[in-house]
């Protein structure tokens, strides 16, 4: 196998691992924002989920219980967001920010009190983590050049949550574009009055949307702490929720393009690690900080209208009042 192939496969493999939480959070944001609820709280929900997963997995020794805890905690935070923004018509950005700050403080405070390890949770091993799965036939085709390598190294050998993350994209697409729920969801994000006039509860629709968002952020959190890593580390979400939000906007609030944006941003991150200290031909060494900032810069450039136009759902950020 050539060196290039090896490097390419390992970089793409890293891309998949890095993109997984981005994809889950971007789909979470898609449900919420398509229903008209701004969700900058992706980061906080994911962080809280990561802590819950690691804490419960450490106590019970079961990764699946950890995943369940992550999802429950994340949904609770999503419901808090809904309670503030849907029921009490609060400012959605303020509420999302509150959730992020709350998660950042609570995870460390509770972590120190419960585990006495400076905010970390105990290292997990065995069944307390999600381990990589070898897809059927992976060993058999390993020797076939190119295609076999790609199947064995790139597609096979990830943990269950990675496959779940990639599955959420078609599922999200199907839910949003092919079902009655999806049609109403998109409608409520564009024109809630019309949906209300048709006799459908705007509140309940939006609540269901934020619950979907909570569910997916919880999985993303569990992935961080009990699949990709073996414990919770303070601030381990490290801005991934915001990158996912950027990817969602970059993907113009559509599942397929958001997936591509997540993969692009994930690839950039994988490349940053690989290019650390390696001079490129013609341009020399690219500063790692520039690579890290690229997703944000690209999103700003997109928002400025230089790469196509990102049009947000029409009624996003506006609380719905029936009285009008």
């Amino acid at each position, binding site marked *: 196998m050539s060196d290039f192939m090896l490097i390419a496969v390992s970089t793409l493999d890293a891309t998949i691992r890095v993109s997984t939480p981005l994809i889950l959070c971007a789909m979470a944001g898609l449900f919420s924002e398509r229903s008209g609820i701004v969700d900058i709280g992706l980061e906080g929900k994911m962080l809280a989920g990561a802590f819950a997963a690691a804490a419960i997995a450490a106590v019970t020794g079961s990764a699946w219980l950890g995943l369940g805890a992550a999802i429950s905690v994340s949904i609770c935070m999503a419901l808090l967001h809904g309670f503030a923004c849907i029921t009490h018509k*609060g*400012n959605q950005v303020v509420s999302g920010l509150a959730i992020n700050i709350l998660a*950042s403080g609570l995870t460390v405070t509770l972590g120190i009190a419960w585990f006495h390890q400076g905010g970390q949770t105990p290292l997990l091993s065995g069944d307390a983590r999600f381990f990589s799965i070898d897809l059927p036939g992976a060993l058999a085709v390993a020797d076939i050049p190119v295609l076999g390598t790609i199947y064995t190294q790139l597609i096979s050998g990830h943990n269950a949550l990675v496959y779940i993350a990639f599955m959420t994209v078609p599922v999200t697409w199907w839910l949003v574009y092919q079902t009655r729920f999806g049609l109403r969801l998109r409608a409520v994000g564009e024109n809630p009055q019309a949906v209300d006039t048709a006799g459908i509860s705007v509140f309940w629709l939006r609540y269901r949307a934020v619950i979907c968002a909570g569910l997916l952020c919880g999985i993303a959190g569990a992935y961080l702490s009990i699949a990709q890593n073996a414990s919770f580390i303070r601030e381990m979400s490290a*801005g991934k929720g915001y990158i996912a939000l950027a990817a969602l906007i970059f993907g113009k609030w559509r599942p397929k393009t958001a997936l591509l944006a997540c993969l692009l941003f994930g690839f950039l991150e994988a490349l940053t690690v690989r290019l650390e200290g390696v001079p490129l031909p013609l341009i020399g060494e690219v500063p790692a900080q520039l690579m890290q*900032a690229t997703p944000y810069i690209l999103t700003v450039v997109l928002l400025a209208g230089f790469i196509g136009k990102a049009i947000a759902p029409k009624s996003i950020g506006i609380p719905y009042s029936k009285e009008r």
Partner: protein
Amino acid sequence: MSNKTLPTWIDVGVIPLINVCLAFLVSGFVILLIGESPLEAVQWMITGAFGYAEGIGYTLYYTTNFIFTGLAVAVAFHAGLFNIGGEGQAYIGGLGVGLMCMSLDSFMPWWALIPFAIAAGAAFGAAWAFIPAYLQAYRGSHVVITTIMFNFIASALMVYLLVNVLIEPGSMSPQSRVLADAAILPSMKDVFAVFGVNIANSPLNIALFLALICCVLVWLLLWHTRLGYSIRMIGFNEQAAVYSGINTRRTIVITMCISGALAAMVGINEVMGAQGRVLLDYVAGAGFTGIAVSLMGRNHPVGIIIASLLFGALYQGGAELSFEVPSITRDLVVVIQGLVILFCGALSLMIKPTIEKLFMKFFAAKERANV
């Protein structure tokens, strides 16, 4: 559901107070949850923040930062803009302050340098706010998203500059050289020493006076100038502002630049004052605390001073608390901050109907009694 049913003192006094109390109540539950006594925690916090001279110095030093960032958020809020980018603007503003000070500190004392430093910091902070503002006003992208992105870009840029450009030769840690002693703002200890009063040493410096001056200026700007009138009108009803002949786009850009410049003044307190150099992540979340401060202070300079003092006390008291009670760290302050933003910001309308009902009942009963 009009605002007229409640008198002003309930609307701006009682309701925010109840919201803050709710936030503290929930914080108390969090302390109970981790097995400590909330009352003891409050006691340590108050002792830490106000119990001794050095503690008071630290409290006021934190307060200074929060006044700047709180004012920055408030000015933008009045125009209906939510500036989450205070953190990045303060960071880049500090770079401006640092660069100006480093180029002039060899031949200028602080009192000659300070106007230049303020101008440079304000220019850098305003420039960092200008791009999101321009994109909001002229290209229709949302200022919330772009300022979040600019926070991350600022952070990456500053890491790059500190590691590769500004780093003190021979030093391992990414920070610039220390400014000349004469160029660093005098601390309050020095100021009081001139009058023969001896106070404890702390990072508190004369930037506190700058913060108070900024409060007065913001108050004058918002309520006593044409620009302030246009800013508030845009926040109240942008359509009406357009029809009354206000150039809303230009005003939005100017407002955000003022907001960025105010946030940048954190650089005066830190880079030219307490730290005496540019260092990594020196803003340390003050930009986000500014949001809590502004929400709690109802976007009014007086409210912001009170809220900043409270948060300054929380930060300093939190440090003391984590020192005295090992199972509690300063992250508890972050929790309280989050809860304040939740109750005073996102849930600010929650208790209003209840208060309205109670008030009407009480009021109606009184009316009847009078008849």
